[in-house]
């Protein structure tokens, strides 16, 4: 089984049954996972910030870094691979609270809200989420069956 790592600001859309997608250390970052159960296509993105307005250059070089640029692109790629409602589910992971007195807002919370807004505008509904808190999550996803495994420290669970 090939392990394919998704770094911060990256996304992958996979229809391969011989690879596992994984992304690490989701602190305030958010992973959005979209899966078409009929054609077995899985998309996963690792988003760092909600709004690309703060860094236009990066939004061009690494659009997945921001929710408002990366998520619509991943959704578009899913559609091109044939993903279609009502066969799709969407799951959200991450967005932990980072308590930093220098921050003007809670980035984790803002990322969750931004992702949900874009999904709403794309008429995609979240069917499960594991978000918030103060833990850093690692996510593994299997395109062959849409299985999602989350881990932190020594604990592992599925959504």
């Amino acid at each position, binding site marked *: 089984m090939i392990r394919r790592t998704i770094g911060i600001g990256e996304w992958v859309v996979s229809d391969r049954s011989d690879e596992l997608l994984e992304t690490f250390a989701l602190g305030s970052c958010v992973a959005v996972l979209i899966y078409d159960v009929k054609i077995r296509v899985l998309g996963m993105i690792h988003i760092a910030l909600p709004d690309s307005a703060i860094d236009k250059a990066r939004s061009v070089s690494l659009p997945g870094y921001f929710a408002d640029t990366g998520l619509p692109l991943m959704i578009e790629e899913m559609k091109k691979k044939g993903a279609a409602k009502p066969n799709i589910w969407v799951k959200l992971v991450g967005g932990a609270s980072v308590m930093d007195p220098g921050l003007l807002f809670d980035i984790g919370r803002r990322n*969750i*809200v931004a992702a*949900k*807004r874009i999904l*709403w505008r794309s008429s995609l509904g979240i069917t499960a989420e594991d978000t918030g808190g103060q833990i850093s999550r690692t996510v593994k996803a299997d395109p062959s069956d849409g299985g999602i495994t989350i881990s932190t420290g020594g604990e592992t669970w599925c959504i």
Partner: protein
Amino acid sequence: MNESLDTTRIEASLSRAVRDVMAEMAFIDAEPRIHDPAEAGASWESRVAIDALKPISCRLELRSPASLIARIVDILFGDEAGADRNQGDSILEILNVMAGSFLADYYGPGAEIKLELPQYVYSSDGEEGEAIAVLDFDVEGLPLRATLSSIRYRY
């Protein structure tokens, strides 16, 4: 009449209700900020209120600029037909859900809650009760004020 209230818990429950409902329903982040009484004269173009009958007799009011309402409607409806006509309805429904969420948070999940229908408030005609809690929020750059007050007249 009103029992004695724990103001700290009231503020915490109200803050949670505002933030959670804005996030889950309007997909917009409301960040608490320090209450500035000097903003009393600010252009709060939209003012909506809902009265609770049980388990406490009180009024929850939201004040915001019209631009925040427009922003919420744009997020919820986009270019959908009917959005312009129903712009005023969105903040009323948000307030309705917020009031239920606040009371359930403060009194617990088993509490019997009764609310009247939300409404727009157009003037201060001396019927305002005593303020129990006043919370200010920064909603992605736009101000929002939530005020919980007692109700002066009840029948």
